[in-house]
């Protein structure tokens, strides 16, 4: 759905770093370096950002339209 607030495994807050991570990776930075920069050293926290997918966006696309047409 949306980035989990914390790393499932260790409890470190990761959600606040996702937007920066995403932005920087999109600008072509090496994800590993961005993760190091953001202080995510453990592989448990790193996988949280690396493997996340914002499904909420595809749901929200529907939020603005009426589900059915017709009557």
């Amino acid at each position, binding site marked *: 759905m949306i980035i989990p607030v914390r790393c499932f*495994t260790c409890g470190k807050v990761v959600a606040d770093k996702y937007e920066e991570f995403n932005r920087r990776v999109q600008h072509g930075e090496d994800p*590993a370096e961005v993760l190091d920069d953001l202080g995510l050293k*453990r592989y448990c926290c*790193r*996988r949280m950002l*690396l493997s996340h997918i914002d499904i909420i966006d595809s749901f929200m696309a*529907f939020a603005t339209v009426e589900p059915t047409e017709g009557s």
Partner: protein
Amino acid sequence: MVGERRDKYWPVIESFFKEYGLVGQHLDSFNRFIREELQQVVDSVSEIKPKIEGYTVALGKIEVHPPSIREADGSEHPLYPNEARIRNLTYASKLLLECTPIRRDGSTTTRLETVRIYIGDLPIMLRSETCLLHGMTEEELIKHGEDPKDPGGYFIINGSERVLVTQEDLAPNRILIEEASKSSSYTHIAKVFSTSRGFRAPVTIERKRTGELRVSFPSVPGKIPLAILMKALGLESDKDIADVISDDEEIRNELIVTIEQSAPINAPRDGSGGSTVENALDFIGKRVAVGQTREYRLARAEKVLDRYLLPHIGTEPEDRLQKAYYLGQMVERLLELVLGKRQPDDKDHYANKRLKLSGDLLVSLFRVALYSLTRDIKYQLERTAVRGRKPNIRTAVRADVITQRLKHALATGNWVGGKAGVSQLLDRTNYISSLSHLRRVVSPLSRSQPHFEARDLHSTHWGKVCPNETPEGPNCGLVKNIAMMAYISVGTNEDAVEQALMQADVEAIEARQGRRGAKWADVFLNGRLVGVHAAPKLLVRAIRQRRRAGEIDQEVNIAYYEDTNEVQVNCDAGRVRRPLIIVENGQSRLTDEHLRMIEEGEWTFNDLLRNGIMEFLDAEEEENTLIAMYPEDIRPNTTHLEIVPSTILGISAALIPFPEHNQSPRNVYMAGMAKQSVGVPASNFKFRADTRSHFFHYPQVPLVKTRAMDSIGYEERPAGQNFIVAILSFEGYNIEDALILNKASIDRGLGRSTFCRVYESEERKYPGGQEDRFEIPDRSVRGYRASESYRNLGEDGIIETEVEVQGGDVLIGRTSPPRFLEEYSEFEITSPNRRETSVAVRHGESGVVDSVILTETIDGNRLVKVKVRDLRIPELGDKYASRHGQKGVIGYLAPQEDLPFTEDGVVPDLVLNPHAIPSRMTIGQILEMIAGKAAAMEGKQQDATPFCGVTEEELFGLLKKHGFQHTGRETMYSGVTGEKLKTDVFIGCVYYMKLHHMVADKIHARARGPVQILTRQPTEGRAREGGLRFGEMERDVLIGHGAAILLKGRLLDESDKSTMLVCEECGLIGVYDRNKDQYYCPICGPSARISSVVVSYAFKLLLQEMMSLGLACRLRLKEMI
């Protein structure tokens, strides 16, 4: 790096999917049905001839309109799929047929005005050309409530999504020769399923031990000697027959017995007794028209030969010689087998199989529907004519006939020809399960018989059928799934191909009077013998060249069998084909330049086909090829090159990382479990009303992926999470495949999902003006529940959203009129008692009301759908599985502080028992753990595509680079004692899926509860709040222990204990008269001594049932002490 090179051609695969999509076979098949076959079926009927003098109706063009719906108030508007789903409608189009009544008055025929008549509704496949969604952009799709990633390829019938499952069948019109088993009456058999326009006529030729040959075909009882049949078909002399069969002396010798059999019917030399042909026909006529005149017999025999013998060759008298030539061919093959000159045919060879797609299935269904419509029209017209009115075609057509026929077959799966289960409810567990369902192929063979060969993986399945994705158990190998790059032919015009063959110097069989000759190669087109050719290799090469040049349709496949000297040309529908790169003179035609053009989107996949760089091959043509696996394997005689070998897998198996490192059954298990994993079924999830659905809260993209996932779109609809897994025993809570999960991880949201169930109810109208009503039922209503059940209902009788509900709580309050009208006339003036027919939350379930949909059905009835959602936090007993067939249930939720930790503070999310690995040999999982860890550290997904993914060495290097042992093991410290663990622990990152079997849906216990009315024993099953059976074996235990009281308690006191009155005199059942407060025996009268006896109610029932049979079962009572 090896990986780079081996999957070099992936862009080609991606362009393939861009062109064909994931369910392209269904869409293309349906489109062809709409565009051509629908009209063909109409043309085959062409005219309705009612028994009215001088009146016929010619059928013209059929038209398919865009899907629409006619409301109860008569208004009409276009129908979009999601409206159909929500309102329980059928997504269908109107069919309009041009009808021209023709009047014949003596010699003058007048064509009256052509009218376009609405003849019924045709369900429309989603995303086909006729579908309103066709060609829409993503935004438009979303606007119409559709998931842009939904593949389509299914139908919506009464609001439920239905798939027409592809049916595998033996190829029609192909001769199959077989050796018979020892016990049968014949030694060898040649069989052909001649099929034309949906009519299937099997023809068999058997060779008896005596050497005689007998033919059987439909509508003729028994078997006919071959020679007589040949003569009936017009081959008068014995020499002709032998010539048509073979010019090989050995084979001709075999024919002696057969030919002698026909001697009695030969025309005598003196000319008396009719011609040979007539005699032969009469021989058949005597079987089909017993006791009729000779003229009638002859006519009947001719009709039978034209209609029922090999109808695929033709159904006109001119085709009889052709049929004789075809039979000759069959006999030659059969005798070659007898003489050991040829091998028996392989039934399981995929060249001998055809797949029937939704289009083909609909053709046969529509044909039957149209027949019954024409019959109905005929009947209606005749009826009006009998009444002396002018027949009017417009009023004679009842659109219901076709609509109901089609809808009923699609809704129930009962197809014409007695096939059941053809249409199935689309599996919406997750994205993969839907896709896999749309690519499923079922074989009609029965599940109960072994059929080992049919279930086995055949070498011709390579690249066509997934070797791993098949269910376990009775359907194993009978239900299959097509491989990623497999594509099913839709069929092209046969005549054009025949012409091309003739141009390539094929000598027509008619021109040679059926004499084929051993030196000449027989040429078959779609199983029909069309001619012979002197230089088959040249022919085959020429045809292939013309196909690659685009001069003949690319759907044509041609193969030359050297051993039997025959050429098979196919252009029919239902062949599974796969694309390959053409190699010529040891050189792949696909150059790096082409690859670049594909990658940059300059070229599409079709450009590759058009330019003769790639071609589709079917199983037959593949027999003539030498296919190199990788470019470096190309030899001078190589003809083709695989694109990427890992495309032999199907959708589901393609998700497995490192499958080539696993034991094969594990991949099979995984392919099955991927379809049970909880994920994101569709992005319009909130606007769907599936009865049951699951939604995973934080799905993650796998860190260890395969390239196929990109093409499938798995990463947009994932169904799992990357768990940190340690392989370790932990207090024994993970023995026998149990899993230990970190409680803290679950607290932080790991593995959470939501389960949704939709309840629905409709305000039905009944004859007599009565209606159902949505309301809070009144206390006086029959079947009124406890009043607190209704507490959350709104004024309109429908529940409010975001209300917490539990089992038994009413969601939709509804009352119905009484079932029988007598009910309220029986007693004085009781008000018409309405019945309570509310819909309540299922027993044992609970949740929160998510949404309420209030809409209207096609009949204008109000329809309510209530979605109840339930948060599912992982708990003891929930099922999880990795992608390697390693499934398990949670055995313990360990507190984080108790679990071992590494020096960095990493604690496993999941502790897997080491015993899960060695016997199952899922090395893929071990590699995934290492690769997952490496991927997380490297910040990049690791590629685990079969045969071309990362290697162990690369992974080891990555781990070392990031300061880990290359083995993937780490030093850990016990969370309980704080000591360093004596040995290193293997820890890594594995993608785990949550499977939809959850304890919350299965947990069940009962103290007291409902009983069956008949036996008064506890009900059975969780849904009925049933008891847990104390069975025979459990009973044995108590007997063994001598625990008599406990036994009695279980079987009597806690079950159907009851008391029964017994007359001590006669031993029959006594009666208590409550009015007189008197016990009496129906036999012995009131003076009898009546005792009350404790028995099982089922026993009392037994006694009474036996009494009803006229048996007197007497109980002899005695004092216990």
